[in-house]
């Protein structure tokens, strides 16, 4: 088949290129520096990834990883509050940060001439952060507003929070990244400072620079700006796990909404050894077979043919520090219930477990993966993201071409085998959104004149 030959040729080319362009070096203080050269445009991105996310938090201070992320913009001795953002803006840059279960990362996108500036600022706040009570007091209120906006007033996101807290009973993925509201209310500046002192260290970070740069020059600059930051003795990490579930779990969440919503989540493995593992790759392919395009199994059967659902979706991420979930979601169509959707999803899974997947379906998913490898090179930022994620979750950026080859090698039998193993009720948590009427229906009061 011609298409097949084309994609295989492309695959070889991609893995060659991917390896050829990435350089790494570890500084004396333990900071790992990774450079991805991409000379298409005169820009670069700097990302610093700390291997400390919400999963490293303790009871009572959930959300502190994310609060600290906010506090990282609040100044050092040399760069007073607000100045970091002003300096980056004046350099034509864009900047932000993000916190996940597994890590916390900060980034700046700039013209290629601005790397020394970005490194100077980022290295400064790696070890010189000021923690003022006053700034903390304001910022933790901003975070509470963020929690209200992202979670409390968003029915589906609220349901997802409860789902995670149910599916994970032992592992800290139980707790939301943004933290429980009570913990935010009780949090102090010293909680945030403790977090900073514990985890913000060169030997707990990966620096990723991608774009129109030369690796050699980047390493020299990294040595200059980051090389003098002292190593910190990191606490011993205690690996949390999640025991095998002993039976199905079901929860209902009531929130103001019109449509009910269903999520089914099965305990699923994530990548530990990119070379030896096969199940996470088979699960990635399985997700593509179920939901990789709008004629894939779930949408075709539930939305288009049976018309039991308004929409359906699949979620699975093989790259994570902790144990994973394989998710299916669906919104019933008017006149149908979440029970109808659950049953229709179960029928599709049963079909897959019984009959497996066709060669055509398998090839389709693989073609999409390969094309995606080409498309991703259109974004320097995304390429850096992928490196940072792999490094921060205990894999290496070197796993990238391996993962691509392993995905291409997944067989129909493996997909069927992994489906048979995973789709077992003893691994399953089912969450249902039970929509509630707005207690106070919108009252319109148009045209009321406003005057100062």
């Amino acid at each position, binding site marked *: 088949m011609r*298409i097949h030959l084309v994609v295989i040729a*492309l695959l070889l080319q991609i893995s060659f290129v991917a390896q050829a362009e990435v350089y790494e070096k570890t500084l004396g203080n333990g900071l790992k520096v990774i450079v991805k050269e991409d000379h*298409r*445009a*005169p*820009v670069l991105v700097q990302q610093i990834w700390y291997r400390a996310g919400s999963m490293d938090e303790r009871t009572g201070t959930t959300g502190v990883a994310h609060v600290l992320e906010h506090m990282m913009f609040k100044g050092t001795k040399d760069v007073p509050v*607000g100045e970091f*953002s*002003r300096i980056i*803006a*004046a*350099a*034509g*840059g*864009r*900047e932000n940060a993000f916190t996940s279960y597994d890590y916390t990362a900060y980034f700046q996108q*700039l*013209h290629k*001439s601005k790397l020394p500036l970005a490194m100077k600022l980022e290295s400064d706040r790696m070890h010189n952060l000021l923690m003022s009570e006053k700034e903390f007091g*304001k*910022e933790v209120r*901003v975070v509470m*507003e963020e929690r*209200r*906006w992202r979670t409390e*007033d968003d029915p589906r996101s609220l349901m997802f929070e409860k789902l995670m807290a149910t599916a994970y009973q032992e592992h800290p993925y139980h707790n939301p990244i943004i933290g429980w509201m009570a913990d935010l209310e009780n949090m102090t500046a010293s909680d945030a400072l403790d977090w900073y002192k514990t985890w913000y260290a060169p030997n707990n970070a990966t620096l990723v620079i991608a774009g129109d740069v030369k690796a050699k020059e980047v390493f020299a600059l990294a040595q200059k700006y980051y090389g003098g930051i002292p190593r910190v003795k990191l606490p011993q990490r205690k690996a949390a796990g999640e025991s095998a579930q002993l039976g199905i779990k079901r929860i209902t969440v009531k929130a*103001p909404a*019109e449509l009910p919503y269903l999520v089914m989540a099965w305990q699923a493995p994530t990548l530990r050894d990119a070379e030896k593992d096969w199940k996470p790759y088979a699960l990635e392919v399985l997700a593509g077979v179920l939901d990789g*395009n*709008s*004629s894939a199994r779930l949408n*075709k059967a539930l939305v*288009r043919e049976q*018309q039991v659902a*308004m*929409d359906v979706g699949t979620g699975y991420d093989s790259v994570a520090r902790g144990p994973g979930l394989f998710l299916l979601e669906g919104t019933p*169509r*008017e006149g149908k219930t979440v029970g109808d959707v659950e049953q229709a999803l179960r029928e599709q899974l049963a079909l897959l477990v019984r009959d497996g997947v066709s060669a055509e379906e398998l090839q*389709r998913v693989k*073609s*999409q993966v390969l*094309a995606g490898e*080409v*498309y991703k*090179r*259109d*974004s*320097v930022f995304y390429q850096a993201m992928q490196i940072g994620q792999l490094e921060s979750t205990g894999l290496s950026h070197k796993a990238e071409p391996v993962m691509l080859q392993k995905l291409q090698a997944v067989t129909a039998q493996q997909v069927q085998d992994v489906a048979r193993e995973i789709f077992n009720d003893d691994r399953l948590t089912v969450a249902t959104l039970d*929509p509630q009427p*707005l207690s*106070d229906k*919108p*009252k*319109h*009061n148009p*045209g*009321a*004149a*406003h*005057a100062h």
Partner: protein
Amino acid sequence: MLTRIISTAVLLGAASIAFATPQIQHWQAPSGARVYFVENHDLPMLDVAVNFPAGSGFDVAGKVGVSHLTFGMLDLGSQDLSEDDIARKLADVGAQMGGQFDADRAGLSLRTLSSAAEREAALDILARCLQQPLFPEPVLAREKARLIASLKEAETQPESISDKAFAKAVFGVHPYGWRTEVADVEKIQRAELESFYRAHYGAKHAVVALMGDVTRAEAEAIAQRLTAGLPEGGADAGIPAVLIRISPSEERIAHPASQSHILIGTPGVARNDEDYFPLYVGNYILGGGGFVSRLMNEVREKRGMAYSVYSYFMPMQQPGAFQIGLQTKKEQADESLKVVRQTLRTFVDKGVTEKELRAAKQNIIGGFPLRIDSNRKIIEYLGVIGFYKLPLTYLDDFTAKVDKVTSKQIKDAFKRRIDPDALATVIVGAPEEKTGASK
């Protein structure tokens, strides 16, 4: 890569930086379509977008939603291809089809590998979706049901409730103020989609943008192939004029959410307006500049009252909205509103400082390379330049236009456009005790 180097010695206090802007090739296809092309062989891929003046602004009263359903059904069945064929065949070659839809524009876009077999297969599907959509009756019935359900859901969520009330308050009976209603969707018939398509998806109004790994000759053939079989199309009806001055209003809508969602605004500026650059640069200082804007500083940095607070001008064919938005817990909604209004009033009355203006220019000009650093971003510019008939030198001129903006121009433009005493305000999830009361 064909690039032209322009030197801009405009960075105040900084060394001059040379920015390479993509060279845009432009021609008219034999079909009548206007074509905009940037040739670039760095990556083995091609992006294509075909747009039409067929957005929601072209709906007629009582049938709002026809434009959106017409657009939404382009890839759900065409001559000889079922909706499943379309999705499957695209996936087989790793192609991704998407679309654009707003009040002015509607159209499809495609990202494909540039290798001949994949490209040909993907373009063939795109051509058929654009030129031979069938709007199959059973698919329409299903899509109407889905749309109705999502509209009902939207009616319960503060973000969409506020958007709808705000659009109505700012644009009144103008099509920019319309939002699709359940009752309208229920009435929509297949024949209306068909006739909307025939009237608005004509070749002579089509704008084709191409970016990536094909030659000029190939691009010419592709553009012609995508547009040759389009309907003749009606006359360009255009979008009716927007009434610029509105009466002040404040609408408070109850909602059980913990936060109030606040929107404040008025009709702003059209895409081709001379005031666009002064307003754009001014708004960066007011509420567009991420962490460093005045609104961000007053509401978030100084007072910790909101996670997000912003302002923007949405330049459209006709003046789109100038909008300020934030979410804050109910108990402090009125206080936040006061801070926002005062910040805007001071801004309009006093204008910007030279220091602020310098910082704004440094960011916008210094950050220009980030606007055109990927095929994705460049094709978006091609679409806008083509659709709104902006000069082909738009990207070359961008930094110079920003640099020329003066604080006097900003003050003058805001004074003429934004009257702090004549704004529409919408508060969804308004503080309980004040609900329904005018202030």
